[in-house]
């Protein structure tokens, strides 16, 4: 990647600096059959630069909605979000988010490598098509082939997505987000559709890549063990209306290892998250 001549000598968001997120008293409601449903009520949350935060909660607690609001894909009805000194829309325009959805969401006609480079290519049609901004800091881009190598997919760089298993496709989706070099990764249950064995392996692959990039991660999940082993903090949400129920700081050392999942500290953390989830679940029952 060559750097554009007009790029600043010292880009504000370099390859290994995350960005902080401040969610301040955010409200969001939807209408279902004409009646308002409160998806998020007075949600406040701060994520430090480089922090790994999981959001866990029952279905319908608004955790995916929160992720979309942070990423500027949905507008809140009240409150505000700051991504460092920018709004989510500005951050989105500056390609500061890497989104990893639940499904791999690969383009079937592009090779694995073509999919990985898709997001950095996006916006380069700009001059011809009147794209509003062209603000990708090229310096932040990471070598896609090295990333594929790291997750064991280098031999498949030229393959089409349909030739890969579901777990491999999801790894491509992860690499695509990392290859963008975005300081913030937003992951919406990225491992939910995978079998348990693949899931277990993917946690450590994710941590492996993340530890070298020190990006900020907001990770939505249904799995308590996944949340605890991955995160610096686990945010528990309650449903109807969606709100933050508790925040658990995980005291496990890094790098995290599989042995830690059998430790007393892990069990204690998981227990507290489970208790909080159960309390919020029972409180939400009529």
């Amino acid at each position, binding site marked *: 990647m060559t750097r554009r001549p007009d790029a600043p000598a010292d880009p504000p968001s370099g390859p290994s600096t995350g960005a902080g997120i401040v969610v301040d008293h955010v409200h969001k409601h939807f209408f279902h059959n004409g009646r308002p449903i409160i998806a998020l009520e007075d949600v406040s949350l701060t994520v430090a630069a480089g922090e790994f935060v999981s959001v866990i909660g029952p279905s319908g607690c608004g955790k995916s909605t929160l992720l979309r609001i942070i990423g500027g894909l949905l507008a809140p009805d009240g409150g505000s979000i700051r991504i460092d000194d920018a709004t989510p829309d500005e951050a989105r325009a500056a390609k500061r988010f890497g989104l990893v959805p639940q499904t791999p969401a690969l383009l079937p006609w592009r090779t694995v490598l073509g999919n990985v480079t898709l*997001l950095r290519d996006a916006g380069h049609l700009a001059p011809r098509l*009147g794209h509003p901004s062209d603000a990708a800091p090229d310096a932040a881009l990471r070598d896609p082939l090295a990333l594929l190598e790291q997750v064991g997919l280098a031999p498949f760089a030229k393959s089409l997505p349909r030739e890969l298993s579901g777990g491999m496709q999801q790894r491509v989706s992860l690499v695509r987000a990392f290859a963008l070099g975005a300081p913030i990764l937003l992951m919406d249950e990225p491992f939910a559709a995978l079998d348990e064995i693949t899931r277990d392996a993917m946690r450590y692959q994710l941590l492996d890549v993340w530890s070298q990039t020190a990006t900020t991660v907001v990770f939505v999940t249904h799995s308590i063990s996944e949340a605890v082993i991955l995160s610096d903090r686990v945010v528990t949400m309650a449903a109807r209306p969606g709100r933050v129920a508790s925040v658990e700081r995980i005291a496990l050392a890094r790098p995290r290892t599989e042995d830690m999942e059998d430790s007393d500290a892990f069990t204690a953390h998981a227990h507290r998250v489970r208790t909080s989830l159960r309390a919020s679940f029972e409180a939400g029952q009529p």
Partner: protein
Amino acid sequence: MSETYEPSPPAARAAKLRPETVAWPRRAARSVAPGIVAFAVLFGGWEFGVRVTHISATELVPPSAIFRELWHAPGFFASNAWITTQEAFWGFVVAFAVAIAAAVVVVHSRVMDRALTPIVVMLQVTPILALAPPLVVWLGFGPQPKIVMAALITFVPLFTNATVGFRAIDPATFEVMRSVNASKPEIFLRLRVPHSLPYLLAATRVCVGLALIGAVVAEFFDSSAGLGWIMASAQQYQEASVVWAAIFALIFLGVMLVGIVTVLQHRLLRWADVDPAPA
């Protein structure tokens, strides 16, 4: 990642899994042979039936008479088939361009969707072939009424498939593109156009036959060239074998054109998991 299972690279896998390592002439022979036998049975039975029952050639023409007509004047049928092909082709091109433009508008604007849908439904239920006589009256004896007929008859399938194809994008992929602020034109080119290709090519396959029918029917009325003109004038002089020869030429033409579309489908849709063969 040594502890996770990896299947072997796709090239190696493909070599192992593909049983068709037989040389291509044999493979082709195998796939074509049943069709040839079926044709032989069909035409043999037809010929035999005509000869045994002594039906007069004006009522049921034996295949031998049809092939004789084609054999004696191949240039005559070929040049008229070429005229029909051009009319059908330009009609298809016009319909394709209008259908794509309309689909782009409809996909991006709910108001335009609601405005155009009734017109499309109206067009869909119109017996297009019945429009041939008035079209000839309006547009004269040149190629115009044939092109318009071919365009009208192919528009609805093309428009419907373009709309469905443009909308067939995966919501998650759409969100990923939005997360990097991809513009609407960019999402159109990078997502919607490739996603619509299987739909458009399937529609094109269907439209090959439709466009030919449209052009031929328009040629029935007051024209001076084309396979439809041959059929209409031979009918007038009760030359049943010539009518049938023109029908056979039309069938042959259609099969060749569908073959071209099939090759395109295989070339362009390698990535798709679906078998593009049945339309």
